[in-house]
């Protein structure tokens, strides 16, 4: 399947407009002056792309500028299926043309600084003034937490931001000799997508079981037990005797030359292929702009508007946030994007912000055709997001995998369609 045909489903209309926009791509200098009201969004991922689109849907009189260095959006959800070869990366890669059709001005640039007093964002040598800013930069890795990692960033793969690393890890897995050892390391919570590493465990184990039956998967988990859906994953793992799961095994050192990682307990583990998921914090721009709390890792926000508790007119959404009883998931980032957009529009129009709560559904693929899920719903109580209920699927099935496909198609469209 080619990239363009797969992408086509999001571009049901407006291709002409998109071409037009591409023909005269906007520059930072076009936005040096602000005429009407303007919202700037940093990051065109799950949170930011959604927020940008929904501000335009809620009030088309507001100018929206989206800053995102990548020309294409690659979905992390479903990207574990690229490792097992069940899906192609192209099937989860989309462009930003439909957002342009909604009137979002997409600038493929990196925000380099935020000036809260001047209410402007620095991009290279230029500045973008804003009325309100929405920050959704996802996570950054804490390379320094693992000895030897900073110097080996290009060789030790995380594949925790879907894209070239995902494809390269799949290639390494495919070219590993039968009988080889694949080592997957999981950082201490909180990290992006609590069930993600365990879904990845299933996908790698399924691939090895089907294609390289003499191989082994060693999982070194910094946490004392599976962080999410433990019983469901353990039931799924009964089908994969090739998994060796070691809890409370935090990796503190990597030596790519010796192809070896070292745990906190001093155990050395040899690998043929390594996937090291490093510890995480909020995206760099959020740290630099002092939006993070005392932990220097995550940003605290108002639960109704997602406005930073530290700086006025700056809202933070997605994985970078903390303090709400929600997981760091794409589904939550999407919900926060919509709620924050409505809040920002109401605030700009001097209207009260209605109470809105997020929701979460995380499907995880446990084989090439079966999935499990966890669902959380929330309410607002005393100005805070409070969980109503968490529900798990009673087991794994093909039906939930089909619902996962339905969810992915819907939510990709909700963000970028």
């Amino acid at each position, binding site marked *: 399947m080619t990239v363009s045909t797969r992408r086509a489903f999001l571009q049901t209309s407006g291709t002409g407009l998109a071409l037009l926009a591409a023909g005269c791509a906007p520059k930072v200098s076009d936005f040096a002056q602000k005429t009407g009201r303007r919202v700037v969004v940093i990051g065109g991922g799950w949170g930011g792309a959604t927020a940008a689109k929904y501000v335009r849907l809620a009030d088309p009189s507001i100018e929206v500028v989206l800053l995102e260095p990548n020309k294409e959006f690659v979905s992390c959800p479903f990207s574990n299926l690229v490792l097992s070869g069940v899906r192609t990366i192209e099937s989860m890669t989309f462009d930003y043309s439909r957002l342009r059709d909604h009137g979002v001005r997409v600038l493929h640039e990196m925000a380099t600084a935020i000036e809260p007093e001047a209410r402007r964002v620095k991009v290279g040598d230029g500045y973008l003034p804003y009325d309100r800013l929405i920050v959704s930069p996802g996570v950054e890795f804490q390379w320094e937490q693992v000895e030897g990692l900073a110097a080996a960033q290009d060789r030790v793969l995380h594949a925790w931001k879907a894209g070239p690393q995902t494809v390269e890890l799949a290639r390494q897995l495919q070219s590993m000799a039968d009988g080889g050892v694949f080592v997957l390391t999981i950082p201490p919570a909180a990290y992006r997508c609590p069930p993600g590493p365990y879904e990845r465990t299933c996908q790698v184990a399924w691939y090895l079981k089907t294609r390289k039956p003499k191989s082994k998967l060693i999982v070194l988990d910094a946490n004392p037990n599976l962080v999410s859906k433990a019983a469901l994953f353990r039931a799924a793992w009964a089908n994969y005797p090739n998994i060796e799961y070691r809890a409370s095994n935090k990796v503190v050192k990597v030596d790519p030359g010796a192809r070896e990682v070292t745990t906190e307990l001093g155990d050395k583990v040899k690998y043929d292929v390594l996937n090291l998921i490093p510890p995480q914090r909020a995206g760099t721009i959020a740290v630099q702009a002092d939006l993070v709390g005392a932990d220097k890792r995550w940003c605290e926000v108002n639960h109704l508007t997602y406005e930073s508790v530290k700086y006025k007119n700056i809202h933070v959404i997605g994985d970078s946030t903390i303090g709400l009883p929600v997981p760091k998931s794409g589904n939550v980032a999407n919900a926060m994007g919509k709620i924050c957009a409505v809040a920002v529009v109401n605030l700009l129009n001097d209207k*009260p912000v209605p109470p809105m*709560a997020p929701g979460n*559904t995380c499907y995880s693929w446990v084989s090439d055709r079966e999935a499990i899920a966890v669902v959380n719903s929330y309410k607002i109580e005393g100005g805070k997001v409070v969980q109503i*209920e968490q*529900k798990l699927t009673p087991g794994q099935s093909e039906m939930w995998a089909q619902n996962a496909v339905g*969810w992915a*198609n*819907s939510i990709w469209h909700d963000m970028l369609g």
Partner: protein
Amino acid sequence: MPIILISLLLALGLTGPAAAGPLDGPGAPQALVCSACHGFAGQSQSNTMPILAGMAPWYFKKSIQDYAAGKRTSPEMEPYAKQVLQFGVDDMAAYFAGQKRTASPVKLDSAAVERGRAAAVQCTLCHGVSGKGDPAKGVPDLTGQPPGYLRHQMLLFKADRRSPGDAQLKVIKALMLTIPDEQLADLAQYWSSVR
């Protein structure tokens, strides 16, 4: 206009640069969370998630209550149904009822649609010739829903897994038992094709 009056009007939301947008109005902001699966304004884009746009309020409410009570078992919908009850089911029912319904974009198999058309007579007794249902009998609209969703619900009726033991649904379940699974798929294709 005196400044005080302007700010009063603004506070009441009576003026301001934008007229009421598609995200204003009772139920609309709280329904945003549903679009992750059901599509913007309930206009589902996928095969497994039902369309909520244009749904009759009585049936929306019944569905939400059935999910919250665990009569219709769905690990996805049970928590969201409780969230709807929390924020106000009437407002959300009215919001979705007010959205224009467009038939599912899922591609249909025309041969299956034709086979389904021939078998669909047995449904019209309750769902009507138009398939639009009958509130008086508690029968919902089937038309334009995604075929994957319709087929799955028929299989649930057949296995008595949707509202098990419900006396009101005895007849439809008995009917489903007489229909082979392949024909259920054809029926789903047909009702999805009806406008």
